């Protein structure tokens, strides 16, 4: 697991000893996200040494999440990714000089998997969004397609230029951005409330989307959407293939 604090190392060590297990601990580095993590270089080396001194813990390596470097320009993405990850590799090298081996160097994400995955010394890449994808990533990583969508029904056509669907905050998770209506030219989802989504219709689209019509919404951020559901409905060739429980739903702790 990731650690970035001596007190936390002491607590984990005590718990590991009490149950007779060995916990693999990776030092979490801050490489620009400014969230969790110690600074690369000496602070990381000090923490790694702290782990090696803690009974019940095994120093297993280094990790970072440099997730804020998503860029539209691919060359920018390449150089920013390499720059962030190089801080981790430099720390690993410094550790080796001190006689400490970082077996695992875990970095990256869906946004830069092939860039950091090709860097020598990186042993694993932490990818999450790619299997289901979402609209925010689709714009950058066109080799992946959105696999998870929300199916909604038009429940009201109050005016010619608007349609209301039965999907809102609770079914879409729009905390980071509005979902995008898929496959209806001239129709755009413009706002959501707790239980409703409002679609504005222009031109030809006004003659579609009668009450009862189904529409697809591509979530802006997939994990916030999935977290709202108890089940996935797996579709293949336009038919229901399976229903899977979302076993980790609600596991915010």
């Amino acid at each position, binding site marked *: 697991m990731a650690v970035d604090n001596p007190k936390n190392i002491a607590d984990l060590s005590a718990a590991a000893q009490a149950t007779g297990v060995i916990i693999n601990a990776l030092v979490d580095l801050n490489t620009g996200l400014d969230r969790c993590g110690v600074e690369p270089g000496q602070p990381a080396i000090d923490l790694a040494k702290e782990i090696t001194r803690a009974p019940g813990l095994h120093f297993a390596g280094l990790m970072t999440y440099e997730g804020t470097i998503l860029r539209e320009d691919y060359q920018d993405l390449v150089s920013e990714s390499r720059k962030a990850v190089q801080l981790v590799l430099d720390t690993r090298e410094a550790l080796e000089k001190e006689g400490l081996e970082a077996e695992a160097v875990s970095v990256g994400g869906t946004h830069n998997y092939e860039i950091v995955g090709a860097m020598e010394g990186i042993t694993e890449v932490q990818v999450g969004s790619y299997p289901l994808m979402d609209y925010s990533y689709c714009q950058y990583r066109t080799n992946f397609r959105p696999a998870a969508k929300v199916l909604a029904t038009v429940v009201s056509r109050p005016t010619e230029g608007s349609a209301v669907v039965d999907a809102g905050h609770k079914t879409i998770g729009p*905390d980071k951005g509005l979902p995008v209506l898929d496959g209806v030219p001239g129709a755009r989802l413009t706002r959501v409330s707790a239980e409703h989504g409002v679609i504005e219709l222009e031109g030809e689209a006004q003659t579609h989307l009668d009450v009862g019509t189904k529409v697809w919404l591509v979530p802006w951020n997939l994990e916030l959407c999935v977290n*709202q559901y108890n089940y996935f409905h797996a579709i293949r060739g336009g038919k229901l293939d399976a229903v899977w429980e979302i076993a980790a*739903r609600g596991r*915010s702790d």
Partner: protein
Amino acid sequence: MDERYRPSPGTPLEELDTPCLIVDMDALENNMQVMSDFYRDRTCKLRPHVKNHKSPIIAHMQIRTGGTVGGVCSAKVSEAEVMVQGGIRNVFITNQVVTRDKITRLCALANQAEVIVACDNPHNARGLSEGAQAVGATLGVIIEVETGLRRCGVQSPDQGVEMAKLIETLPGLSFRGVMSHQVIGGAPDRETRFIEGRRAIQTCLDVRDSIEAAGIPVEIVSSGESWTYDVAGDIPGVTEVQGGTYILMDTSYRYMSEFQYAGKVLGTVISTPRPGVAIGDVGMEAVGNVKGLPTVDGRPGVTVSGLDVQHTMLQLEGDASLSIGDKFLLLTAQQDAMVSRWDRYIAIRGGVVEAVWDIPGRGAHN
């Protein structure tokens, strides 16, 4: 953590595993009492909206405390099913139900309890009638009126009259009345609430007047919500008010100061990477961010500066300090978007656990 994590009654708040969803019982009871005191001696009554808490236990408490119509409203058929299974006998689904499967479920439910549904479309009214006839049920129907929300609803008194006439002729349906829902932005003062609330609700009453002028009695006018409970409750002709947010409250309703914050998320500091900064384990998935950042409750000098999917960014000023393992409470800006992310409430009184309640309406989106 264990999926069945259920701290025993008596467990101190600060020993709870986090994040967890807290209900402050003193605040919850205050909020129910405010409503009960207001509606008890009035003709107009409260119809608690269960989309906000999704819990039959809380719904029963609301009804018991008093001042209600004796039933609830819900946003979804699945929420209504949860309420009827939980022993509530009267549910008004305040949204349109249009698909065949869902109409079938709605009408089956109408054989188990008094069920009313909102409608704003003639084709939909016919579909409801067919569904009700198929199972021999009588379904109450209330016409939704657009009063400024620019969402669902009939757009004029004439359209309302047409709908009422149609519903009156359709077998299996019982025309019950009209409804509307209003929102207001910012932090309006009392005068603004009264002016804006009355104006919107008058649009709904105009539709009622036209329907009655056409010879069709209108039994229910269901309008108003937490921010207009004291406005709508005194407008002659409004028979019930749909109050939802008041029960657990959120910071976007902070101007309704008679209600207290009852729903909160408890978090733990997991990292203190830089001076003046602490990182907590409560992210968007736990507290929601749809109407803005959450607020730290009861820790002067600590503010939320940012929120990621799984992390809280806390900023410390002045003498404020937080260490790894410290607990903090967050208030959300949209209460129902927070609750819908959780499987259970942990009810707290006097700083210790009193009860753990499942949220059977969780994930009830359809």
